[in-house]
C-alpha cells in the first residue's frame, strides 16, 4: 500500500540522517578543537550488542533545548546499542509526564525545578536553592511515580523574566520587584501553560504581587519574537537562550527567589532503568558531563541561530566531545 511505502521511505531517510549525524565530521567551523587523541582508542560510548534487546522510546517537550537533549540521549543510547525510538516535541511538562506514565515514552529530560513546582506541589516559599538538594527532592517525587531520575546535568536552564534594553532603561528595571511600580502599564507574553505555573505568571502574581496590564499567551517558540518586535513589554525566556545575548535583552534579577534550580535530569521508567542497568546509567553520566551552561547555550544557538536541526546538532555534540565516533 502507498502508505507503507512512504512510511518505509521516510524511515530510511531518518535512519540515513541518524547514521550521517553519528558518523560525519563537521565541515564548517574549520577548527580542530574536536577530539583528543591522547586518551582513548575507544570512543566514549561503547556499543554493546547485548543492549539491542532493550528498546527505549525517548521523548521531549516542545522547545529547542528539549528537542536537542532528547536527540542527544536518543543518539547516545543508540550508539550504545539500545534499540531507540523518538517521540520528541510532545508538548508541555504535564503532557510529557502523562506520556511517560502511560508508557508512550520510556524516558525524557525534565528539569528539577519544573518537576518540583508542576508535579510535586512544592510551595513557592519552600523551594530548595541548592541544585543538588532540588535534584534529591525531585528524585524522591519521581520515585513515587515509579520513575527513575538520573543524576542531573551541570547546566541549569531557568525560566527568567526578560525585557528589552529600552524598556529596562525607560523604567529603571534591574530586579523583578522593580516591575511592581509599572506593572499596570506592561503586557506580559508567555506560553499557554504560563498562567498556571508557579514559576511563571502565577508565581509572579503570588510571590511578587504583580498585576500586569495584560497577559497574552503565545507559542513558546515566539518568546523572543514578541519582545523584539515590540508586541510584548515583558516576556518569559530561558537562561540558556542564545537570543538573549544576541538581541541584548535584559534579564531581571530574581530577588525574591521565585525560580528554583533547573538542572536537567533524564527521567526513565523504572522497568527500563532496571533493564538498562549500570550501562544505561553510564551512558547518561557520560553525556551529562559535557552539558555545561556554555555547551547548552552553544547547542541552542546552533538550532535557533544557525537554523540546524536538533538531530544534526545532537550528532555534532556527540562527535565533537568524542562520545561517539
Amino acid at each position, binding site marked *: 500500500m*502507498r*502508505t507503507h511505502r*512512504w512510511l518505509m*521511505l*521516510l524511515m530510511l*531517510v531518518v535512519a540515513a540522517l541518524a547514521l550521517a549525524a553519528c558518523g560525519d565530521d563537521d565541515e564548517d*567551523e574549520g*577548527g580542530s*578543537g*574536536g*577530539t*583528543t587523541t591522547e*586518551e*582513548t582508542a*575507544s570512543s*566514549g560510548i561503547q556499543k554493546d550488542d547485548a543492549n539491542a534487546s532493550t528498546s527505549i522510546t525517548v521523548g521531549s517537550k516542545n522547545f529547542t533545548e528539549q528537542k536537542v537533549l532528547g536527540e542527544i540521549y536518543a543518539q547516545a543510547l543508540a550508539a550504545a546499542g539500545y534499540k531507540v525510538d523518538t517521540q520528541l516535541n510532545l508538548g508541555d511538562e504535564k503532557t510529557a509526564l502523562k506520556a511517560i506514565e502511560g508508557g508512550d515514552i520510556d524516558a525524557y529530560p525534565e528539569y528539577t525545578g519544573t518537576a518540583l513546582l508542576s508535579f510535586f506541589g512544592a510551595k513557592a516559599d519552600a523551594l530548595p536553592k541548592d541544585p543538588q538538594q532540588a535534584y534529591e527532592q525531585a528524585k524522591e517525587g519521581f520515585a513515587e511515580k515509579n520513575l527513575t531520575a538520573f543524576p542531573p546535568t551541570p547546566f541549569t536552564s531557568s525560566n527568567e523574566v526578560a525585557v528589552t534594553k529600552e524598556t529596562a532603561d525607560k523604567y529603571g528595571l534591574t530586579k523583578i520587584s522593580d516591575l511592581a511600580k509599572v506593572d499596570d502599564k506592561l503586557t506580559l507574553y508567555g506560553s499557554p501553560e504560563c498562567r498556571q505555573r508557579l514559576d511563571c505568571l502565577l508565581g509572579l502574581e503570588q510571590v511578587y504581587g504583580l498585576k500586569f496590564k495584560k497577559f497574552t499567551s503565545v507559542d513558546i*517558540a*515566539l518568546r523572543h*519574537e514578541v519582545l523584539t518586535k515590540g508586541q510584548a513589554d515583558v516576556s518569559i525566556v530561558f537562561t540558556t537562550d*542564545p537570543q538573549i*545575548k*544576541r538581541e541584548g535583552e535584559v534579564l531581571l534579577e530574581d530577588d525574591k527567589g521565585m525560580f528554583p534550580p533547573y538542572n536537567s535530569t533524564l527521567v526513565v521508567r523504572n522497568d527500563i532503568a532496571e533493564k538498562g542497568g549500570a550501562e544505561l546509567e553510564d551512558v547518561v553520566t*557520560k553525556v551529562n*558531563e*559535557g552539558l555545561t551552561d*556554555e*555547551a547548552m547555550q*552553544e*547547542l541552542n*544557538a546552533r538550532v535557533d*541561530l*544557525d*537554523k540546524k*536541526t536538533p538531530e544534526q546538532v545532537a550528532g555534532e*555534540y556527540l562527535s*565533537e*566531545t*568524542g*562520545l561517539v565516533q
Partner: protein
Amino acid sequence: MFQLAQLQIRKDPTESCEADNGFCPDWIADNFDRYVDPFFQHLYLTVIAMAVGFVISFALAIVAYRRRWLINPVTQVTGILYTVPSVAAFFLLLPITGRGNTTALIALVAYVLLIIFRNILTGLDNVPEETKDAGRGMGLTDRQLLWRVELPLALPEIMAGLRIAATTTVGLATLAFFAGAGGLGEQIFADITFKSNVIVAGGLAVLLAAVLDGLILLVQRLITPWTRAVAAR
C-alpha cells in the same frame, strides 16, 4: 577514565543571515533537502485526495444526472462537508480515525466533493439539447449518449472543476500536519518566524498548486482538441 573533548563554543553573537531570521539563499541551498520529503508527502496527499474525491463525485454525478431529485440532497451534504473548516474536520475525525494520513485524506476528500460534483453536473447540463437530439436520432442509447457525447462535451467544465479542486486541496493539505500527516505545513510551522523557511515551504506549496493547475489544463487541451482556448478560467 574517558575524558570528554571540548565543544566548540562561539565567541560572540556573530552576524549571520539565519540568526536574523532573514532570507538567506546560502542557507536555503544547503538545507533544501529538509523540504524534499514534506513536498512529496504534500503531493501524495493532494493526488490521492483528488483521485478518491473524483471517483466518488463522478459516481454521484452520473447517478444524480438521471435521478434529478438526488441533486439537492447531495449538494446539501457535500456543501456541509465543504463548509466545515479542515482543521475542525481533522479533530472531529480524531476520535474515530486517529492521527495520520487517513484522517487527513478523509477531510481533504470531503472538501472537494462539492466542487467536482457540481462542475460535472453543470458540464453535463450545458450540453446543447440539439446535440443530444442528434445523438438520439443517430440511434444512440442513453448510456451511449452519456459516455460518447455528453461527458466528452462536459469535459472542459469537469477539468475546470478539477483545477479548482487541485489548487484548493494543495492549500488545505498545508494544514494536514494538524492531523499528523506531515506535508509542507509542518515545515512552515516548525519555524514560523524564519523568513527563509516560510518563503521556501510556502513557495513550494504555491508552486505545487500552480504546476498541478497547469498540468490539468494541459491535459484538458490535449483531450479536447475541439474546444478553442476559452478566456477567463
